[in-house]
Structures are given as C-alpha cells and as structure tokens.
C-alpha cells in the first residue's frame, strides 16, 4: 500500500515536472501569449469574415443568405469602380513611386554627395507624418483656391479642379501617396544599394561599362530582392488604401477615387451592411494573396521569392 502511494506521488510530480519551465518547455510558454492573441484577434476574425460573407445583417442579427452577397457584388457598379480605381493606383502609382525612390536612392548613394544623412531624414519625414495631418495639408494644397492653383496662376496656367474632377482627383490621390511613401521606399532601396559590393562596379569600370550600363546590369539585378520587397509592401498598402480618399475626396467625385477599403468602410460602418462588407473583405483578401503570389513568383527563387 505504501508503495502505491509513493508511486502515485511520483506520477503526480512527474506530471507536474512536465509542465515546469525548462529548456524543453520554455519555447511553448514564451510563444503562448502571442499565439493566443493571434488565434483570437487574427485567425478567428479571418475565418469569421469568410463565414459572414454568406450572411446578411438584418435588424441586429445575421441571417444566412447563401451567395447573395457575391451575386450583388457582381452587379454593383460602385464595387467595380473601387476595384478599377485600386488597380489604376497599383499600375501607375506603385511603379512610379518605386522608380522615383530608386533614382533618389542612387543619387543619395553617390560618393560625390555630401550631407547624406540630413537628406535621408528630409526624405523620410513625410512617411512619419500623422495620416490626418497629411490628408488635411493636401486637401488644402489642392483645393480650388489652394496653393497649387496659385502657383499655376503665376505661370499663367488656368486653375485645375484637383479634387472635384474625376481624372484630377485620381491624380491628386496618387500625388499624395507618392509624397508620403517615396522617402520610405528610398531608405529601403538605399540599404539594398549599400549591400552591393564595390568590386562589381570596379570590374565593370575596367571592362569599360558606362554608368548607365552599370546601373542596368549590376544595380538593378542585384537590387531585385529589395525592389521586390518594397513593391510588395507598396502593393499591400495600396490595396488597403483608405485614409487618403476618405479625407481628400470622400471617394468622389462620382466614386472616381473610391478605394476598396473606403467602400468596405462605407458598407460596413456607415450602412451597417456587415455581411456585404465581409464579402468585400474576402475580395480584398483574394486580391492581396494573388498579387503577393505574382510578385513573389516574379522575383524567382534566387531573389527571395518563390
């Protein structure tokens, strides 16, 4: 009998020691809080969004409605407007900004330039500006009697309806985005440039390659993973675009600047169509996944892609 009690005690203490903090158990304890938070606030909402997209929100409760939200999406002109606006931003603004930031990074990496770190700070500042402040500044610059039109009037150019004309409103949003994020991407590119070994350029110099050839055949290929990373981040940012159209144009005029993010907000939190907004979220998710996949694929295995 004594023996069985001791055994029982031993078994218990073994069980306890299994959960004691040691080299083997420590990592589980260390990651547990983060994993729990991810499950609750990321993974669960992720699956819930997909589920909710098959429901409609009526008088305070969710009612199963099959694929009706998706059917509605396919005949929703505003949704397609938001989709095409997002792709317009992706096709024009992201490459434009990436090129601009690469040019600036190359210029700032040049040995002949002084005060590099001061310039770097100046370029980086727009990206730390608080979102609302930045949107307010741009809405004032671009307003009918704003600074930009004043400058144009000095040059004898007629004022441009920046925020109230469908075409110019898009241009305005892209200009604002470019102002905010070029410096940020430039810093990332600069880090990449400084990782390229000088010997590559020296060898090319000896072979008689011009600066432009060196840029094309050394800088760009060596920078591929960095360019890829910065474009991927910009793409995800653009797909998520919200604050700029929200503050600058409210998505107008006639939805010419509405983004998927803003449309989602309008449907979900203004019209309380939570089910329909969830369907928009799912589309947002799919586009992000597809775009990320394409860009990773384009990068190739050697460049940090797939």
């Amino acid at each position, binding site marked *: 009998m004594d023996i069985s009690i001791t055994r029982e005690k031993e078994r218990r203490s073994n069980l306890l020691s299994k959960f004691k903090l040691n080299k083997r158990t420590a990592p589980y304890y260390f990651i547990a809080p983060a994993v729990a938070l991810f499950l609750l606030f990321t993974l669960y909402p992720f699956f819930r969004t997909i589920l909710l997209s098959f429901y409609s929100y009526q008088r305070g409760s969710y009612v199963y409605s099959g694929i009706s939200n998706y059917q509605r999406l396919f005949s929703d002109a505003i949704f397609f407007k938001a989709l095409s606006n997002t792709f317009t931003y992706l096709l024009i603004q992201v490459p434009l900004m990436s090129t601009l930031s690469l040019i600036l990074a190359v210029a700032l990496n040049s040995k002949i330039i002084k005060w590099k770190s001061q310039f770097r700070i100046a370029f980086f500042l727009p990206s730390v500006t608080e979102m609302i402040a930045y949107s307010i500044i741009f809405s004032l610059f671009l307003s009918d009697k704003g600074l930009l039109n004043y400058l144009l009037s000095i040059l004898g150019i007629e004022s441009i309806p920046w925020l109230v004309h469908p075409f110019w409103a898009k241009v305005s949003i892209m200009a604002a985005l470019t102002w905010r994020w070029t410096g940020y991407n430039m810093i*990332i590119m600069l880090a990449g440039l*400084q990782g390229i070994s000088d010997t590559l350029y020296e060898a090319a110099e000896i072979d008689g390659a011009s600066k432009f050839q060196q840029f094309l055949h050394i800088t760009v290929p060596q920078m591929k993973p960095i360019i890829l990373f910065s474009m991927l981040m910009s793409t995800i940012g653009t797909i998520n675009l919200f604050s700029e159209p929200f503050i600058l144009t409210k998505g107008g005029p006639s939805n010419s600047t509405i983004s998927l993010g803003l449309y989602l907000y309008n449907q979900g939190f203004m019209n309380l169509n939570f089910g329909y907004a969830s369907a928009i979220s799912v589309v947002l998710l799919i586009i992000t996944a597809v775009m990320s996949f394409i860009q990773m694929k384009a990068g190739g295995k050697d460049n940090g892609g797939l």
Partner: protein
Amino acid sequence: MVDSKNKIKTILSYSIIIIGVIVSLFPFYWMFIGATNSSADIFSFPPKMVPGKSFMKNLSALNEQIDLQRVIFNSFFVAITYTIFTLALSSITGYAFAKFEFKGRNYLFGAILLTMMLPGQATMIPLFDIMKAFGWLNSYKAVIIPGIASAFGIFLMRQNMLKVPDSLIEAARIDGCGEFAIFYKIVLPTMRPSIAALGIYMFMAQWGNFMWQLIVLNDSSMKTLPVALSSLVGLSRVDYGQVLLGASLSTLPVIAIFLILQKQFISGILGGALKE
C-alpha cells in the same frame, strides 16, 4: 573633360535631391505657418508664407471644439501602452523562435509571417463584433490589445535574436539560470538597439493609426487626436487655422521622436544594413 563631366553629374544629382527635399519638407513648413494664421490668411492671394499672429486664437478655438488636453493624453496613453506591450510580446516570442527548437516551429513562424500580408481591413468587421461582445468599444482596450501580437515585431526581434551567441545562453544554463531569467537578464539587455528601433516604429504606427480608432472610439472623451481632428474636417464650416494647428500638434510628437532617435530607428529597422 572628365572633370566637367563629373561637374555635370554632381550638379544633376544635387538638383534631383534638392528638388526632392523641397517637395518633402515644404508641406511641413506650410502647416506650421498655417497654424499661426487665420483661415482668411491661409487662403489669401498671394498666400502668406511667414508666421502670423493668430496662434493663440487658433489654440483657444481648437480647444473649444475638442478637449485638447484629454485628446492628447489619449493619444500618448494609447501609443505608449501599446508600444510597451508589443515590445514585451515581440521580444519574448522572437526569442523563442530564434533560439529554441520545438515542434512546429517553422510552420508557426511561417503562419505568423503570412498574417503580415493580411490586410487589416479584411478582418475589421468580426474584430469589431468581438470588441462589442467584450464590451470594449470606446475603451483604450479596443485600441491597444487586438494589435499587440505584431507579426512585424516578432519577425524583427527574431532576426536580431538570431545574432545572440548560443554559447552565452548555454553558459547561463550551466550556471543554473532559469529560462525566463536567461531571457530577461541576459538576452534582453543585448537587444537594446533593436528594442529602441522597434519601439519608435510601434509608437509612430500607433500614433498614426486611424481607421480602427475611428471605428471603435466614438465617445468624444475617448477619441485620440487624429480621430478628433477628422471630425473637425467633417464640419460644414471648417476653420483652417485651427485645423492646421491641430494637424501640427498631431505631427510634432512623431517628428520630434523621429529626429531625436532617427539613427537607431533607420539602422534598427533595416537590421544595420545602412552604413555611412
């Protein structure tokens, strides 16, 4: 010949850079100028480019519209608390991923990285429902807690923790140091630069966080500065001197922090890849 070619290159490079700097910085200058001018001055022809005399008037007008003290406190409280929690969680999780072997480690880490690409807006509606169910709407909790497990933070800390020598950790173990003590007393102090960099990053990100705060904070005493400002812009008659003062106030803290700590920030975020 070579000299004149170099000269052209130098001039060209400087021109690109100087134009860029002006474009980058002018809006800040203009915002601060605007904060000291009246709405009429801001839209005068030609526009005023020097400080005006309306600063105090703008300040009291702004204070009438929004409880500045309260709103600024909210912004600081939310950003600082969020930063502390995120740093604690990112560093201990990053440490586990960098320095331990355990079942499913790579899959789990991959899954966390994938959430970095997940658009935040896509999960906003269920997250809002959770907040409602928890009774967290219009509380600091709703702004702070859902985001403290940051995939980016964990990733960055893991990358930097990889550099900690294993021998240091083993030696501490042999000396009988407990696992948490090893992390807290030995590994964490070596991580100071990374923690500083991530801290600045998180503070700035939370300070400028807007859409989520707009959704979960409706009570005027709970609003953060950006959310309060956005409600001003929505008014039918906007006093721009006052709004630009608000914009300046919401931008100054991040600019100040960035300017003071920019070196740690840039090199820390880029993993020390930058050299002078």
